[in-house]
C-alpha cells in the first residue's frame, strides 16, 4: 500500500490513467487535505486542482468570474503538443454572452422534449447493434457495441450518410485522444490534431455548402443556416461547432456505456438487481454516470483575484475542475465508493452544472437508458474475456477495448 503525499501524487500523467484508471486515492487525499491545491511539478504547467463537489459547483455557477479559455485541460508537457494554438473555437472555449448566443443555435434540438422524439430511433439502433452479437458468444464490447450507438444517433441527427461513419469515428478518436498511440500512430500530438481537424473541416465544409443550397430538417442544416447576432456563423466557429458536436456526441456516451458495463460486471449483485427490475434504468444510468464520470476535467481561469475555500487565487491562474472527484465526495454521497443503482438523490456532476452544462445530457441519458435496459433484458450473462485497455488521456476517461463473453436470450 503506497503512501500518498501531496508533494508526490500525480493526477495528470496520461500513462497513469492507462495503468490504473482514475486516481481516486489521490483525489480522496486532496479532498480531505487540500481541496483547492496548488499543483506544481517539473513537467506540468502549474494549476489549482479543485476536487470537491461544492467548490466545483461554486466555480461552475460563476462563468464571468471563472472563465473558460483555449486550453481545455491540464496534462504533462509533451514536446509534440501544440503550444498557444487555437485548435477549435466552440462552446467549450466561449464565455457569456457569446456562449449563450452560440448555444442557442442548436439547443432546442437537445431539450428533454426534443430528445424524446428520438426514442424510437434510439431503440431501433440499439436493437440492431445487439442483434449483431446473436450469432457468436464473444466480442469487443467497445468497438462492437458501445461505440456504435452514440455514433449512429449523432450521425443520423446530422444527416451524415452511413458510409462516412467510420471516418467520423476515426477523426473523433484522433481529436479527443491525440496522445494515444492507437489513434495517433507515430505522429506527434500536434500532427494528429492538425490532420484530424483538416479532414473534419473539409468534410463539414462540403456538408455546409450542400445544406445551404438544399436545407433539410437535420442538425447539419440547423447549424449551416443558423445565426448568431443575425449573421451566419463565421467559418472557423461553424466548422468547430460541427466537430464539437460530432466528437462530444460520440466519445463520452461510449465511455459511459463501456465503463457502466464494466462496473456492473464487477458488482454482480447490482447487475442481478438490474436484471430483476429493468425499470430501474433511469436511476441505474444516473449511478453509472456518477461512477464512470467520463469527462475527467475542464479548466477555468479567474478574471480577477479571488478566494476559493480559503485559498487565494490570482487572476489568470489555471484551475482544473475534477468532476469524477466531485462524484465521490463523501460530504455529498453516502458510501461514494459503493455502486448503488437505486441511489437517490444522485446530484452528480458528470454533466457539469450551470452555463456549460452538457448540451447533450438528455440525449446521453436516453441512449444510456435504452442501451442498459436492453443489456439487462437481452443478456443472460456477461463476463470479461480478457483485460480492458484504457485510453491514454487525462481529459476523458475511456475504455478502448473490452473483450466480453456472453449468453444472450434468443430473438423472439
Amino acid at each position, binding site marked *: 500500500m503506497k503512501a500518498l503525499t501531496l508533494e508526490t501524487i500525480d493526477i495528470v500523467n496520461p500513462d497513469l490513467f492507462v495503468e490504473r484508471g482514475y486516481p481516486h486515492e489521490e483525489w480522496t487525499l486532496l479532498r480531505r487535505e487540500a481541496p483547492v491545491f496548488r499543483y506544481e511539478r517539473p513537467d506540468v504547467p502549474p494549476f489549482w486542482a479543485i476536487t470537491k463537489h461544492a467548490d466545483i459547483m461554486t466555480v461552475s455557477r460563476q462563468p464571468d468570474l471563472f472563465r473558460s479559455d483555449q486550453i481545455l485541460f491540464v496534462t504533462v508537457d509533451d514536446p509534440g503538443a501544440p503550444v498557444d494554438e487555437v485548435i477549435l473555437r466552440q462552446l467549450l472555449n466561449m464565455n457569456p454572452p457569446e456562449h*449563450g448566443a452560440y448555444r442557442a443555435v442548436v439547443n432546442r434540438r*437537445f*431539450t*428533454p422534449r426534443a430528445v424524446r422524439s428520438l426514442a424510437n430511433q434510439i431503440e431501433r439502433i440499439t436493437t440492431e447493434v445487439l442483434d449483431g452479437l446473436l450469432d457468436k458468444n464473444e466480442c469487443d464490447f467497445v468497438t462492437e457495441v458501445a461505440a456504435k450507438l452514440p455514433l449512429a444517433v449523432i450521425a443520423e441527427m446530422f444527416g451524415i450518410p452511413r458510409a462516412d461513419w467510420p471516418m467520423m469515428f476515426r477523426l473523433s478518436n484522433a481529436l479527443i485522444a491525440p496522445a494515444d498511440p492507437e489513434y495517433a500512430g507515430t505522429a506527434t500530438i500536434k500532427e494528429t490534431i492538425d490532420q484530424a481537424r483538416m479532414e473534419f473541416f473539409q468534410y463539414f465544409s462540403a456538408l455546409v455548402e450542400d445544406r445551404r443550397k438544399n436545407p433539410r430538417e437535420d442538425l447539419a442544416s440547423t447549424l449551416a443556416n443558423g445565426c448568431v447576432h443575425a449573421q451566419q456563423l463565421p467559418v472557423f466557429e461553424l466548422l468547430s461547432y460541427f466537430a464539437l458536436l460530432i466528437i462530444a456526441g460520440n466519445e463520452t456516451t461510449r465511455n459511459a456505456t463501456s465503463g457502466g458495463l464494466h462496473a456492473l460486471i464487477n458488482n454482480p449483485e447490482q447487475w442481478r438487481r438490474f436484471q430483476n427490475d429493468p425499470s430501474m434504468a433511469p436511476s441505474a444510468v444516473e449511478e453509472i454516470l456518477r461512477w464512470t464520470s467520463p469527462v475527467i476535467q475542464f479548466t477555468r481561469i479567474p478574471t480577477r483575484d479571488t478566494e476559493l475555500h480559503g485559498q487565494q487565487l490570482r487572476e489568470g491562474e489555471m484551475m482544473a475542475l475534477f468532476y469524477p472527484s466531485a462524484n465521490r465526495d463523501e460530504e455529498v454521497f453516502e458510501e461514494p465508493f459503493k455502486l448503488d443503482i437505486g441511489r437517490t438523490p444522485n446530484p452528480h456532476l458528470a454533466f457539469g*452544472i*450551470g452555463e456549460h*452544462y452538457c448540451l447533450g*445530457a438528455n440525449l446521453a441519458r436516453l441512449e444510456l437508458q435504452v442501451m442498459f435496459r436492453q443489456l439487462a433484458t437481452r443478456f443472460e450473462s456477461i463476463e470479461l474475456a480478457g483485460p480492458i485497455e484504457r485510453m491514454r488521456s487525462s481529459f476523458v476517461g475511456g475504455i478502448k477495448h473490452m473483450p466480453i463473453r456472453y449468453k444472450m436470450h434468443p430473438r423472439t
Partner: protein
Amino acid sequence: MKVAVDHELCEGNGRCAEAAPRVFALGADDLSHVLLEHPPDELSGAVARAINLCPRQAIHLIED
C-alpha cells in the same frame, strides 16, 4: 424577493417543475414559467431545491 427564471439560460430540463410543481411549470415553449412569483413560506424549501437542481442555474431570487 421574487422568483425568476432566466429564459436565456433555461432549456426546459424541468427539474424545477419536479421539485416545486406549484411554483414552476414547463410551457409549450419548452421553457420554465413561474406560477407563483412570491411563493408561500412552506414552499421555500422546495424553491431552494429547484434553484440548486437547475442544471443551467437559471433560477434566481431577485429584489422586487
